[in-house]
């Protein structure tokens, strides 16, 4: 995500096109996903460890590249790019109250919401989606049915990483217009929390994401109003709730059974 944000930022900065920046963010994320898939599905390094390693590598690389590309900038002269304008959907955005909330968001926000039913359809209503989920539960059975396990793992990992890159691109190109190392501040981990919170169902991701976003916004406005409540409490809440959700959902958990277990043919 951090790398995606930087790629988007740098490309937009040099080409002046926000959409090219978004594309670059996705490509950067996807490339990292390719490395991740290679490490976990081909070399079969422990996936947790591989993920952590790539995380550290990507954050270091982003920071290094930022310093290299924007060498000579000082803290008073921070490079920035213009951000996406809020689109105004004719007529609908003029509806009082509702128009502001529902029809004046970034195009990418609509895309994000649209992606939820799309992913749901893909995972639950297509043969490929079923195979993908099966690989997560029982790769051995899939292998016997002639489904290529590494193939599905590559596709899933690269898709996920591309989306994460897009998310990073959105942050820098639609909200801040800046890039700095702390830009992402753990949002990749929150995504993990949302998946657990939503118990692995695509439809629940929306509610989880909205809820976590709501807490973040509430915290900001409470600070602005000056309410006597430690804002850190609200910031910490998503993380505490994730742990609670993990404990509560344990009996109904839909966690893929073979999550993070490397699959080697003929070995159990």
């Amino acid at each position, binding site marked *: 995500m951090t790398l995606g944000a930087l790629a988007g930022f740098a490309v937009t900065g040099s080409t002046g096109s926000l959409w090219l920046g978004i594309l670059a963010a996705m490509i950067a994320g996807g490339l990292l996903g390719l490395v991740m898939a290679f490490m976990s599905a081909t070399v079969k390094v422990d996936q947790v460890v591989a993920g952590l390693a790539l995380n550290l*590598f990507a954050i270091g690389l982003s920071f*290094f590249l930022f310093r290299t590309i924007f*060498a000579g900038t000082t803290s008073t002269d921070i490079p920035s790019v213009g951000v996406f304008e809020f689109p105004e959907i004719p007529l609908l955005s003029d509806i009082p109250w509702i128009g502001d909330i529902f029809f004046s968001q970034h195009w990418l926000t609509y895309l994000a919401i649209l992606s939820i039913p799309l992913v749901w359809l893909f995972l639950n209503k297509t043969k490929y989606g079923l195979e993908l989920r099966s690989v997560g539960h029982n790769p051995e059975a899939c292998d016997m049915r002639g489904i290529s396990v590494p193939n599905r793992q590559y596709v899933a990992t690269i898709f996920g990483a591309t989306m994460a890159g897009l998310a990073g691109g959105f942050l820098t190109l639609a909200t801040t217009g800046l890039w700095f190392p702390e830009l992402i501040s753990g949002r990749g981990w929150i995504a993990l929390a949302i998946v657990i919170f939503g118990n692995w169902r695509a439809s629940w991701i929306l509610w989880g994401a909205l809820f976590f976003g709501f807490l973040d916004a509430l915290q900001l406005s409470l600070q602005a109003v000056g309410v006597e409540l430690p804002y*850190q409490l609200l910031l910490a809440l998503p993380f505490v709730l994730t742990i609670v959700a993990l404990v509560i959902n344990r009996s109904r958990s839909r966690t893929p059974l073979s999550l993070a277990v490397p699959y080697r043919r003929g070995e159990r």
Partner: protein
Amino acid sequence: MTAPTIPPADAIPPPSSRTPKSRWDISNWRVEKRLSVGWVREGIFLVLAVVIALALSALLIVASGASVGEAYKALAEGAFGSRRSTLESFVQATPLIFTGLAAAIAFRARIWNIGGEGQFFAGAMGGWWVANAWGDSLPQLVILLISVLAAALAGAAWATIAGFLKAKFDTNEIITTVMLNFVILFILSYLLGGPWRSPDTFYFQTVRMPEASWLPKFIEESRLHWGFALALICAVVAYVLLWKTPLGFEIRGLGINQQAAKFKGISVAGTIVIVMALSGAVAGLAGMSEVAGLHHRLQLDISIGYGFTGIIIALIGRLHPLGVVIAAIFFGALVNGATFMQITTGTPSALIEVIQGLVLILVLIAAVVVRYRIRRVHADG
């Protein structure tokens, strides 16, 4: 209907002449699993991984416009060029030895404690709190001992939350420890913004702790403090614990085969809690060592990801205390040398994070690859 004609046996060319037998014919090569990996071979692969990582990073240096030779020379000079810089490398290595050991202990039991960062802060808070409360009224040795104890307890307590949840509810410890990392930072941020904030400053920091509770200098005229010695002692203790005690046997047994460990009568749940507590205690000491040895007050930036770097170090050190110490000193030297490199050659010091990440990635791949060998086999075999 005609019967299919079967060609006479001698009409079929023998396999060897059908496929030209070449040294490079890939079908003649087999990837096999090695039965055992000698430590010499393992060592060669480790060195190779580091060399490749440095070579790949050299490409980045070229991209940044600096000279590779000069940059690496400055890196080495900044790390070990003089007595003073060598000692400073040890200063940088100190927290990493602790957090590396913390990760190694947990990973030996195949418990993924990613919470070293949070436990670091818990230990720092525990150590500072005790030092601040009694630093003026107790003799130096006593206050140091109890703040070490408090830090270990605080780190252990924070880690035990995840350990208990795993033992009792089988929750994934990776996620709980990561979440707890965030939670403790928000707790600290709250304390530093309110109850613990130093009255004479607008910054998020506490008052300086009484001088009696500082970790004394290990070597005068440097920043090297007794935390370094404490870290080395911890490494020895960790070695003895893991390989010379029944508990260590159980911990390693849990990591190798949980089923077998259960049949052997090892309490899996109990061991999980103990491992997490031990791991957290060591990570907590890292926090105390940094605060009492260097900063002397609590701030939000006392850790630059030491908990996470500790994970890399544990893995590069092959989860062995000696390996951890060596890897930590290597990384400490990188961090120390990077500052000098940035000043003299203008290569961004963030390069070392890339090197660290690359070293880990390549070491991980090497660790798998070293277990296999490629052998040429005869076509008929």
